[in-house]
């Protein structure tokens, strides 16, 4: 390391997971992982969300799971809480899960402007 700039660059590179460790992330994606959700493919939805988060580099986002929400026929269910707004997505598959993350990213980008 040669300078303050390099130190900052190193910190940028190492990214964001610190936010997760303070349970203070403003955005939260919850995947319903009851047996009903898992049977309908919630696991691949979860992996798709994480893959897309890693690819897009969307920050300050926590991914958690929950149990059965009681609407088993519409599983896999994904709940997104962003800036206090809650959206519940039904019949999510891997492709739609990736779309959810990309939408979040563009929302976040708009908000930054």
């Amino acid at each position, binding site marked *: 390391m040669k300078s*303050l700039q390099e130190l900052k660059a190193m910190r940028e590179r190492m990214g964001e997971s610190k936010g997760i460790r303070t349970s203070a992330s403003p955005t939260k994606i919850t995947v319903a992982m009851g047996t009903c959700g898992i049977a309908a493919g919630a696991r691949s939805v979860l992996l798709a969300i994480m893959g897309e988060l890693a690819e897009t580099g969307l920050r300050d986002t926590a991914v958690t799971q929950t149990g059965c929400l009681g609407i088993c026929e519409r599983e896999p269910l994904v709940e997104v809480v962003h800036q206090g707004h809650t959206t519940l997505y039904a019949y999510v598959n891997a492709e739609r899960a990736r779309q959810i993350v990309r939408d979040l990213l563009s929302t976040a980008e708009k908000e930054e402007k």
Partner: protein
Amino acid sequence: MKYYRAHVLICSGSNCAIKGCRSVKQACEQEIIRHGLQGEVQVVDTGCLGLCDQGPALVVYPEGVMYGRLTPSDVLEIVSEHLLKGRLVHRLMQQPTGPAGEVSPLSMTPFFQKQKRVVLKNCGLIDPERIEDYVRAGGYTALATALDVMTPESVIAEITQSGLRGRGGAGFPTGRKWEYTRVAAGQQKYVICNADEGEPGTFKDRLILEGDPHLIVEGMALAGYAIGATRGIVYIRGEYELSIHRMEQAIRQARENGLLGEGILSSAFSFDLEVCAGAGAYVCGEETALIESIEGNRGEPRFKPPYPVEKGLWGQPTSVNNVETLANVPSIIEQGALWYRSLGTPSSPGTKVFTLTGNIVNSGLIEVPMGITLREVIYEIGGGIPEGKQFKMAQTGGTSGGCLAAAHLDIPMDYDSLQSHGSSLGSGALLIMDDTHCIVDLTRCFLKFFVHESCGQCTPCREGAPALYHLLGKVSAGAGGHADIQLINRLSRTMQSSSLCALGQTAPVPVLSALQHFWPEIEAHLNGRCPANKCVMGKAAGKIAN
């Protein structure tokens, strides 16, 4: 960069290691692999979370759920329920849940809410064995900033303005110590980090070194820059194996990344560190005895003056600072003296790390603003006295600190308030005792420690401590009279005024404060009665006392 949806932070401090955190971590990693979660869940070794009583412990983020008192088989349940299915394992949780079963994050629990973490800001959140974790948490920014835009004089000015005082016990203003070392004439100046923590009941320095060693590297480099030293030594108590290991590793990593060595961060400043392990003498926590020990001599205190700031290690100007003091430095440089002064009290700014031990529900490590009351610490953060018993006594500052009674629960905890009540902030140990204990018995116990640890160099300490110990034994056995109390008083004053170092000077403090604050109980012993029913009186006792 890799994205993990959950982080499992396992406390790997030595207090948890004793309770078996390694096998808990192993079980956790094996289970995560068995369920194929290794790409999603990261397991991290961290420093102390503070709730040592509940170890082995781990915290799962993003929920911020803490599980405690774990066995490896408990971990199987945490992995298959919480990490795989997202269902909390309420049986093992250590924090209350709301009416709908929701968890309040760990930071919102009473134990953490009253705390203010400056020194411990990274403890329990980062992996102390990875420099990357420290940098990601903002580490080395203070050093880089200081080298970039500050002169050594302005670093000292900032520390002086912040009002930072030595956290080893004496409370000497750090800025002034650095200034003296800077202006002293000498070829080679030294920074020494005093991590020879030997005060019974104190383990803060150990947990700081284990939890965030790079913070000390950065603090020492800043001290070196300020006073014009190119070499530093971390003198760590020999029994602190994990501290020594992590410190050596941190120094190596800092060197590899150009944060120690020649021309740090392309500046003209060169500085390097080495670790020196102590050999197990309490007196070596005294700065001049510590210096003797580094030089390869017997650990005996030197006559003062000259002070180490003028003639220290190898006769050169040396600044000896406590671990916690140095741990405050990067934050002060980064956030400024004014910010630091906004914490604590005017005469004792900042925070203080305490170790809670004895009869208290949450024994462990805490950091609070100076000036907090003993009551808040014991009843709000510490969770009170277990088994419904009553508070009797708190000893602040370790074995050489004073004994405070229930009447003192509301005095603010800072250097000056405690001193005016015959006690001291000392090393930050807080020993809490319930009403089943006897004050005479306790003070005798404290004295036994000093009898053992006196280095024997000066007479008042070498002879005084055993004499005090035997007099207290006499009182404890019901054979003492008012003449003995007078003798205890005189002997104590002699030791305080004529011992060579702080060991002998402070050894009588618990006795004098006990006489002051617990006189009725001591007087009962003179009448042949121990109110707490701890002391063995009469003939049977005579044998024990002799």
